[in-house]
């Protein structure tokens, strides 16, 4: 950016920053050596000396904030959040990863396991299997709670590799079988106790889960096709897995997203006309084909920025001396390309709205705490 004396700056209407400050405030400049203007100017009085108000007004925010959905299916979602500060976008991302509840296998009761996978490794692998069930239908199980139909899901895994088959057997996640009426395993009891009393299992379900309207025609399943173990002829695994509700902060197995991330929108600006040989050079420099060549007529070819979103800011186009004056790479500070990859418990758009709700709840609890 060339230096311009203050008195040469163009007059601007009130409450508008001079262009160079506008650029510093809204864009990260990705220069050859390092990015500059990476910080966000959040203080309300930052530009008070110029008579410019930097405070947040909700009506202003409501007017400027936009959401654009780019891609949406059952698992992934990509959307643009435009006109929001990084601190709030980051709060959504953090909540998505670590504070949204899901169900995951927490207890494994191994009756028999002769496979080479050790019990603790097996239990860990089972824990990471995503369960396709809406966690909002369940309650958290605290330390003193008994497992019941409202806070637990029980799965059975009973696989055997027949000796006569002579082939190894792969145990997949879809071999897990949902037990809607709870555990089948009896709690060890003292022999002297009343023989007429009903023997207790590891769970105390008062009713079968498949009698609930949510699950009657919709059995609980897990993501199929995940290899859990391999069995040699004669080996078998017989166990029960108990899933409970939890959050990703406790253990990543409860995280509802494979990952959730955002990046700022890249902005590629040609500072001068780049024509003919230079245009072809520029197109060839870019590994992700951001630039195109436009025919200007009379045999003049000019480079254009065709796909700025594809830019990874590798800075290859400005690496050679002199090119930094021709091409500017920037990032828009308040435009986030947000991506959510769900693990299957909830669709990604529901995950995001739930994350926003959690941030609202946090604010509300602070307000009540202070009142």
């Amino acid at each position, binding site marked *: 950016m060339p230096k311009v004396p203050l008195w040469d700056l163009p007059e601007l209407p009130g409450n508008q920053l001079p262009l160079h400050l506008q650029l510093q405030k809204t864009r990260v400049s990705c220069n050859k050596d390092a990015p500059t203007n990476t910080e966000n100017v959040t*203080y*309300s009085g930052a530009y008070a000396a110029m008579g410019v108000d930097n405070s947040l007004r909700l009506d202003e925010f409501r007017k400027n904030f936009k959401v*654009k959905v780019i891609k949406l299916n059952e698992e992934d979602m990509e959307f643009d959040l435009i006109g929001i500060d990084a601190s*709030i976008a*980051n709060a959504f991302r953090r909540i998505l990863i670590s*504070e949204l509840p899901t169900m995951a296998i927490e207890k494994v009761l191994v009756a028999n396991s002769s496979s080479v996978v050790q019990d603790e490794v097996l239990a860990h692998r089972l824990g990471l299997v995503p369960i396709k069930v809406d966690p909002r239908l369940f309650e958290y199980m605290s330390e003193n709670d008994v497992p019941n139909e409202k806070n637990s899901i029980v799965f059975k895994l009973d696989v055997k590799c027949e000796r006569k088959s002579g082939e190894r057997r792969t145990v997949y996640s879809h071999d897990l079988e949902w037990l809607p009426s709870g555990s089948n395993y009896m709690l060890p009891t003292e022999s002297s106790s009343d023989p007429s009393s009903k023997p207790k299992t590891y769970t105390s379900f008062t009713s079968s889960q498949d009698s609930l309207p949510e699950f009657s025609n919709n059995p609980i399943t897990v993501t199929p096709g995940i290899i859990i173990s391999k069995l040699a002829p004669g080996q078998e695994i017989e166990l029960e897995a108990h899933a409970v509700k939890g959050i990703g902060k406790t253990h990543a197995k409860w995280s509802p997203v494979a990952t959730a991330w955002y990046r700022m929108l890249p902005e590629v600006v040609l500072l001068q006309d780049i024509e003919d040989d230079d245009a072809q050079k520029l197109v060839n420099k870019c590994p992700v084909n951001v630039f195109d060549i436009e025919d200007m007529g009379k045999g003049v070819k000019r480079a254009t920025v065709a796909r700025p979103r594809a830019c990874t800011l590798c800075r290859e186009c400005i690496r050679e001396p002199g090119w930094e004056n021709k091409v500017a790479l920037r990032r828009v500070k308040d435009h986030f390309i947000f991506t959510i990859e769900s693990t299957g418990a909830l669709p990604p758009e529901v995950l995001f709205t739930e994350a926003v709700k959690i941030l609202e709840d946090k*604010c509300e609890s602070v307000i009540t*705490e*202070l*009142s």
Partner: protein
Amino acid sequence: MEHGSYKDQSASTFSLADEDHTLANALRFTLNQDPRVSVCGYSIPHPSEARVNIRVQTTGDPAKEVLKDSCQDLMMICQHVRSTFDQAVADFKNTNGSESE
């Protein structure tokens, strides 16, 4: 929990249990955007303790009220984000629903 003085309520430190950067950084943003705030910031005194301290110094108003207003602002932002997002998703499903099926 608020740590401040009775004589001067315009400066206080608020210690929030079971919170982290998620809330504190978002609150720092909304606090900074409030013209009544002269200084604010937050710290996490120890990484193994789930607690965050938010410092608020105002130009005169009680810090507690300013923080409450900032929470309110953040909530309003969230509500607007949620409604805009839901609308965008509904629009996307309407226009692209026939293609994906």
